[in-house]
């Protein structure tokens, strides 16, 4: 643990924890919303055959058409889920 606190050392330590890129932080903060979107899309795909077929045919376009704008990670998860089932 820190015991000597000269200004130079404090400056070095303060420089060490730089802000992560804002877009990374924002994406991480939006995870709850993203997960809800994922769950909603998967539930719809399981209940609505036409929606599921549209997703399988062209995932990005089908999502956009329905007003969903999930990020790439969620799209990849949906694609994987569709492939599994």
């Amino acid at each position, binding site marked *: 643990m820190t*015991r000597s*606190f000269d*200004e130079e050392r*404090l400056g070095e330590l303060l420089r060490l924890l*730089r*802000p*992560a890129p804002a877009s990374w*932080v924002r994406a991480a903060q939006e995870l709850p919303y993203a*997960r809800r979107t994922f769950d909603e899309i998967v539930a719809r795909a399981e209940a609505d055959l036409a929606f599921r077929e549209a997703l399988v045919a062209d995932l990005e376009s089908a999502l956009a058409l329905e007003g969903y704008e999930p990020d790439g*990670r969620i799209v990849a998860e949906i694609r994987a889920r569709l492939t599994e089932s």
Partner: protein
Amino acid sequence: MSTPATLSDADLVQRCRAGDSEAWNELVERYSRYVYAICVRGFRLSDEDAEDVFQDVFTRAFMRLETLRDGSALKPWLAQLTRRRCLDAISGGGREQSVEEVMGDEGSSDMEEIEEAFAVREAVAGLSEACQDILDRFFAQDQSYRTISDELDIPAGTIASRIARCLGKLRTELEGRNEAADGSSE
């Protein structure tokens, strides 16, 4: 009711588990620099790998928060998640370098420094907002006196002395914390 920024880690985790999105925002805010530092300073990941690990760590944390028995252990839990994912990124990325080569002999001391830096950052949170702001702008964001002067609307000639004063207060804060820690361990 406490605002998320003033909550302990244990309370923050509890609120996150209850679906409080403001608490989740605070959890990410509180630990984003720490996770980022482990990726880029501790393991020297490229920006691309660091971004993947960063997002994956918070995704896993969000999905597995229920499995964290003791919410006050959030920081070591996140550190462990991050280290594992960094190692996966290094070993699974088809790199020719080994983990030892990437981290070098100084790898463990880098991790110790990150821990030390986090403790200092926690102490910074005990200072006035003005001090928190100017120290962060100058040291962590590399802003020049000119930029700080323009953005905070304060004379450029007073910035060095303001920073020095805030560092003095930070030193006092840290010494107080260490004395308290020493006292409680005796």
